[in-house]
């Protein structure tokens, strides 16, 4: 339902340069954008597409180390590129407001939330202090913050992330601006919290008929929020269309490929009738040095050649479970069995053969590969270390591994990790794990730092390797789409406990444990009416933190 009315923001041929390696390079390469009053436009693209830079540019603002080099930005008839700094500043906060990604970092720790809220109205002399505070409380209530009368008088660090994000949206609303820039406002939040913030943002934008630019990398999120969607790639526009049209009928190849990502699904395998599990986590409790218990009586089994996805929000203990299995964090109670025999709890006490059985692939390929070591050694070292390969045999093995992960050996043999792209690095990480010839691999959020297309490639690769090498995976993730495509079994965790576990097909059909239900229903879907439908089904008070608290 695009509201074709008066044009509010008109950007033409915008070029923004960034300073790197002692020279200015274009990071935005001539983008056009037209936004009408009351319209919400989603800016979507992979990391490095320049979404956030355009967002700041729409306020006539260039971040440190960037400059607007060409083009025009016309806001409500006023040209921002030629306006004086004072004129531009007079718009910010009053007519164009900004909501940042990390609310926790973007609120000044030294002042109360409500004082930061009223700063704008007071500065622009729109309201007296008392009025502004009353108004703030009203906005807090509309955004469904708990204790709206009182919450503003707290300091930012005394309030949770999801609440802060809503308080920041309220702050952006304080002067009733014509346009709000939302810069990935829910990226740092958990899915159950995200949905609550999304609902609140959508409501308030609608109530005040505010135009918005909604920046995100998540297609499903933008589908809920935006009237029109603009897809960006490396600082240039790919295409723009209304949300329904973009979802049902994308024109460009790149957009289609983004949409197609979720099609991959590996056939589900089932447990052998009578076999010993490869890895068995038995009643494990764990805590970091005398701290509170992170894991509480966690038990599940992983069978050879199967993928078990461990799902949960941040702080649910999924990564800690992996650390217990690998031996980095010896459990305070319970044990880890490998083919029925206990593993020594501390990795230092495990034999070379025990260590090789269980390998890890990490989320951030950047920190998982030593930037100062050649690819040949990164992959070659485990092979030499465990199998004692030397010379030509070692070189052959490394070539074989590079072939296995679909990278041309001669091209990559002598390169260093920083020269590779994110997906290539992740492949090297996989090759390093394979070099040990393991039977079991822990995949810790291996696709969440990657752009969707690349992630898809990695998932296919992992699936192929599993079939060829009979590997078992423990797949830690918070992304249910990934679970759907690769898992055989699912374990749902919350607050250090296993809430529910079972084969994938059972897990995705009701009835569920209430938490699983909440988790599953909170994951945004590509359907633009998903959020509306969900809110109708569950009611606004039965989502997010409120719902979690009820459980």
């Amino acid at each position, binding site marked *: 339902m695009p509201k074709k009315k008066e044009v509010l923001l008109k950007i033409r041929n915008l070029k923004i340069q960034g300073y790197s390696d*002692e020279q200015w390079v274009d990071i935005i390469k001539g983008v056009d954008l037209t936004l009408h009053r009351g319209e919400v436009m989603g800016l979507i693209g992979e990391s490095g597409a320049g979404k956030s830079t355009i967002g700041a540019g729409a306020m006539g603002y260039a971040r440190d180390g960037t400059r607007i080099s060409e083009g025009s930005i016309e806001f409500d008839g006023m040209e921002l590129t030629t306006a004086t700094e004072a004129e531009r500043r007079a718009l910010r906060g009053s007519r164009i407001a900004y909501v940042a990604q990390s609310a926790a970092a973007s609120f000044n720790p030294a002042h109360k939330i409500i004082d930061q809220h009223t700063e704008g109205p007071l500065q622009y002399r729109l309201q007296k202090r008392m009025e502004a505070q009353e108004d703030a409380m009203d906005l807090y209530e509309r955004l469904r913050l708990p204790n709206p009368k009182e919450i503003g008088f707290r300091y930012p660090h005394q309030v949770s992330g999801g609440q802060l994000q809503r308080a920041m949206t309220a702050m952006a609303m304080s002067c009733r601006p014509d346009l709000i820039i939302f810069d990935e406002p829910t990226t740092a939040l958990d899915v159950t919290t995200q949905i609550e913030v999304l609902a609140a943002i959508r409501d308030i934008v609608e109530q005040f008929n505010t135009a918005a630019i909604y920046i995100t990398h998540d297609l499903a999120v933008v589908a809920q929020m935006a009237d029109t969607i603009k897809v960006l790639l490396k600082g240039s526009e790919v295409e723009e269309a209304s949300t329904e049209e973009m979802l049902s009928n994308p024109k460009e190849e790149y957009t289609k490929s983004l949409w197609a990502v979720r099609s991959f699904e590996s056939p589900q395998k089932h447990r052998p009738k009578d076999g010993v599990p490869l890895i068995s986590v038995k009643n494990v409790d764990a805590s970091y040095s005398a701290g509170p218990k992170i894991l509480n009586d966690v038990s599940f089994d992983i069978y050879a050649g199967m993928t078990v996805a461990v799902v949960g929000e941040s702080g649910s203990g999924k990564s800690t479970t992996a650390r217990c299995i690998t031996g980095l964090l010896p459990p305070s109670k319970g044990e880890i069995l490998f083919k029925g025999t206990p593993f020594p709890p501390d*990795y230092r006490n495990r034999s070379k053969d025990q260590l090789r059985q269980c390998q890890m692939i990490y989320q951030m390929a950047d920190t998982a590969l030593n930037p100062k070591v050649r690819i040949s050694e990164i992959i070659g070292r485990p092979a030499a*270390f465990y199998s004692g390969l030397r010379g030509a045999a070692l070189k052959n093995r490394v070539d074989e591994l590079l072939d296995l992960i679909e990278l041309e050996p001669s091209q990559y043999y002598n390169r260093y990790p920083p020269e590779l792209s994110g997906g290539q690095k992740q492949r090297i990480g996989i090759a390093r794990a394979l070099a040990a010839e393991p039977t079991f691999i822990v995949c810790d959020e291996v696709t969440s730092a990657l752009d969707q297309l690349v992630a898809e490639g990695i998932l296919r690769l992992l699936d192929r390797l599993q079939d060829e090498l009979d590997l078992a995976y423990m797949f830690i993730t918070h992304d249910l789409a990934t679970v759907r495509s690769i898992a055989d079994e699912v374990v749902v965790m919350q607050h250090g406990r296993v809430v529910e576990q079972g084969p994938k097909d059972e897990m995705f059909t009701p009835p569920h444990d209430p938490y699983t239900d909440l988790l599953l229903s909170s994951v945004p879907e590509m359907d633009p009416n998903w959020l509306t439908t969900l809110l109708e089904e569950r009611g606004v008070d039965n989502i997010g933190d409120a719902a979690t608290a009820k459980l």
Partner: protein
Amino acid sequence: MSYFVIGYYALLLAVSCLAAFYNRRSVFLLAFSLTLVSFVLGIVGGVGALKAVAICAGLLGLTAMVSYAFREFLIALAPIETAKELRTAPLTAAFGMFVIFTYAIAGIFAPWIAPFGEAEVISSAFAPADENMLLGADQLGRDMFSRLVFGARNSVGLALTATIAAFVLGAGAGLLAATKGGWFDQFMGRFADVIMSIPSLIFALLMLSIFGPTTPVIIIAVAIIYAPRVFRLTRAVAGNVVVMDYIEAAKLRGEGTGYLIRREILPNSMAPLIAEFGLEFCFVFLLVAGLSFLGLGIQPPTADWGSMVRENATLISFGDITPLIPAAAIALLTVGVNFVVDWMLHRSSGLKE
């Protein structure tokens, strides 16, 4: 108004106008603010002050030219990778490298460069400069220039040895503490805290008073004083590396501490450690110079810059700048090293962003 003054202002104004015309904002700001400052200086200090400014500017220009030429020289000689990095060096860093290079040459080839021996008495006390003696004689009639050249070997050599000793101790302990963690890490951290709570010069004086001012004592004392500082930095740098997933991967593989430090941690801590080495060298050098100035450093007749300043200090009251030369030699090297370190730190911090 002399022609000099007219020329002086004409030149400055011409440069300002040209810079403004060609939109070189920083050059314009510099030239024009210099013009304004010169008005004040000219009124207060007369032609003399303006001449001093002109001489300073000329010297700065010469230094800049030397630095520029030296940087081009290095770029021409260095292999491609290094040359690319050198191109990013500001003139100050090039100047620093030039200074370090000159001092290294002077120190290494001291006996061949210096016309006389360091303890050789060749004329009367405080004899002025002549064709034999570039800078005149010191309080015992030894050639100042020769002693200055030998000083490069003695003073810098001592500071360098002490810095290396401090570095081996501190960096070794720091790497080990970061890798091992646990009680060893805790203990070393506390120990470093205690040592660092004693001001360095005071601690050095305490040790020298007890064990006597001999070269080995100075080296050991300095190493003990500065090792905790190096330890702290190395611990912090290595601490950032140790939390990386590739270290965890290596640990889980079953690699030993030696491999972890050598192959995984050290290569990733090298850049900040080298910069830190430069910084620590400056501190050590200044401390050792201070000690010799107090008469507690390298003992005579060995030539040493700090003690040369003290021995000739009386000349100052006659308006003679001779005692300032060795002091300037100290300052110049420290400035040079600091310039290079500043560039390196700037680079590594720039890369992070």
